[in-house]
């Protein structure tokens, strides 16, 4: 076993490499993913080692990237698309929603879409417009797609490989402000040794008083909040959803039944976000067990603001704790 202390970006890089080694049908498409290795260097070195036919710099057109990936998937390839930033997935939205999501159903399974669309997402890096979006709910509301978000190096390493191995299309969100976070990862084990299934949630921290539900960049935020709360004598359970569609509901419901309180935390705008779906499901599944309604701690219902406002716009430790307080007001 090789334990490496690596960043999330590097973990994804190694994961991609392993997937490419394991299956010659895996290929990567995107803007600047070749020589440059992607603007976040997630594909660093891969074109050098696997060639231009498998690591494909594309013309600058996201619909074209996803549309050609559809054709490659039809031909038996497993394309992994990089969208450079969250805000640039929208030119490809039509291909994703009307083609990628529907091909399996349209063809009654004769045509599979084993495609991964990697999207660095979320704010917190002081970026310009369109570089800090959290569009996951759009995809959650699109049957035919599966949607996941990783939150740390270990998950990044395993989940990208599992997503590539998945026979359904996966929208794969990477929390860009956590790319440089480091952790120990066992990088030498085969994919079957993955500690979790792809579409499973993970209990990050046990607690008894309330449940924090989160994913992507907010997992770390929630863990820190739980630490702070512990110091104040409140025991918070933290669950990293990881799978946004389908959601791994059983452990979530179990936790909320136990604690009686749920606080959903995400960067995406509140209205119509994943928190709404969780609230709908939990208020149904735990109707008699909830001490309080599901509290949502989210981005405000505004277009993402200029960088100097983002600290105030995004959920942080204090806002999470404020959400917990709100829950305890019931």
């Amino acid at each position, binding site marked *: 076993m090789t334990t490496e202390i690596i960043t999330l970006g590097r973990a994804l890089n190694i994961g991609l490499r392993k997937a490419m080694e394991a299956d010659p049908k895996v290929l990567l498409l995107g803007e600047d993913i070749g020589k440059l290795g992607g603007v976040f260097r997630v594909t660093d070195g891969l074109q050098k080692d696997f060639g231009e036919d498998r690591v494909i710099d594309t013309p600058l057109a996201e619909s074209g990237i996803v549309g*050609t990936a559809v054709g490659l998937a039809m031909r038996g390839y497993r394309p992994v698309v990089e969208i450079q930033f969250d805000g640039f997935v929208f030119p490809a939205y039509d291909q994703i929603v009307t083609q990628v999501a529907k091909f*399996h159903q*349209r063809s009654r399974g004769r045509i599979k879409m084993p495609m991964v669309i990697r999207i660095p997402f979320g704010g917190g890096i002081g970026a310009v417009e369109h570089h800090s979006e959290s569009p996951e709910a759009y995809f959650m509301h699109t049957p035919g797609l599966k949607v996941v978000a990783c939150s740390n190096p270990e998950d990044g390493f395993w989940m990208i490989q599992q997503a590539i191995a998945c026979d359904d299309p996966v929208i794969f969100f990477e929390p860009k402000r956590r790319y440089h976070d480091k952790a120990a990862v066992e990088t030498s084990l085969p994919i079957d040794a993955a500690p979790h299934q792809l579409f499973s949630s993970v209990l990050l921290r046990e607690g008894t008083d309330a449940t924090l539900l989160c994913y992507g960049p907010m997992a770390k935020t929630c863990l820190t909040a739980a630490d702070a709360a512990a110091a104040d004598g409140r025991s918070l359970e933290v669950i990293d959803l990881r799978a946004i569609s389908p959601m791994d509901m059983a452990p979530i419901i179990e936790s909320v039944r136990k604690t009686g309180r749920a606080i959903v935390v995400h960067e995406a705008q509140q209205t119509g976000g994943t928190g709404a779906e969780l609230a709908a499901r939990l208020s149904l599944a735990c109707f008699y067990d909830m001490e309080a309604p599901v509290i949502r701690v989210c981005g405000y219902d505004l277009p993402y603001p200029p960088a100097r406002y983002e600290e105030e716009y995004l959920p942080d430790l204090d806002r999470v704790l404020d959400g917990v307080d709100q829950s305890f007001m019931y």
Partner: protein
Amino acid sequence: MSSTSTHAPAATPMVQLLSPEGERVNHPDYPWDFNADEIRALYRDLFIVRRIDTEAMALQRQGEMGIWASCLGQEAAQVGSGRAMGPTDMAFPTYRETGVAWCRGVEPKHLTSGWRGIDYGSWDPLARGFNLYTVVLGSQTLHAVGYAMGMQRDNDDSAVVAYFGDGASSQGDVNEAFIFAASYDAPVVFFCQNNQWAISEPFSRQSRVPLYQRASGFGFPGIRVDGNDVLACLAVTRHALSECRSGNGPVLIEAFTFRMGAHTSNDDPTRYRLAVEVENWKLKDPLERVRSYLVREGLANKVYFDALSAEADQLATDLREHTLSLTVTNPADMFDWAYENQPEHVQQQREEFIKYRASFVEGDE
């Protein structure tokens, strides 16, 4: 200021090998190399395709299909290009390619099932080398390029034909497909059936210049062909496919033709175009000219035509019977196709659905 003048008649040179009167035309780049069997076979295709189309329109009118997109008038463009393809080539049709489907061996009843609302087409797209219909205009041209890029990577010298309409040529996706194909030298023949109309909009709304000229700005060749001349369509598509196979990358073909019928069975073309335009195009009918040629050259006689007619009628009868027999037998099926691995909540919805339906069968209402 903004002008929507209807298109000027084609003053542009276009490849033609058989005149509307059925006379052989010599062309410097596309020599005549068709034998009698081949021309008879093409005529059979044209004839059968029209018969299928007629039957389907009748079925639609009788309420047996929700809608039908007729290929009337475009048979030559479809059969010519369809017959140019080899067995391992792949076609990416729009929603109007009855003729191409026929050439690719797709059973007509596998088309009607889609328009009847049973499925989205019943054929196996990869086995047939004919993708399912794509209704979002232009999307399929990108799939075609990707598929062709796959062929390149497989070191397979097959090629792809991507169909689209004159209206669809305005979609961003089609132009991105040009860019990607040119960038990677992908073996794609872009085959535009310029049938002069996009529902009610004349071609002049989409472009100031003939469509085949679009290609040169993207760095690859464009050719205009008489889309009502099956021989020219065959020859030009063959040429384009061989360009692709030799690694030269994409070719654009503009098949200049006409949509003789309504856009679909829902449409009323009298609201936007004159009868005289349709009448003029009738004189260029794609079947008539081949028939004239065959007759004039003594390559087919009444016996041949009668037998063909009977064959086509039989096909139409089968199509009708089969189409009428198509129903949804188990509505719960709809849950089975969305995913390769069905998520739990969909599974659960399926079970609830079955329970819910059972509650009616067993009891009230």
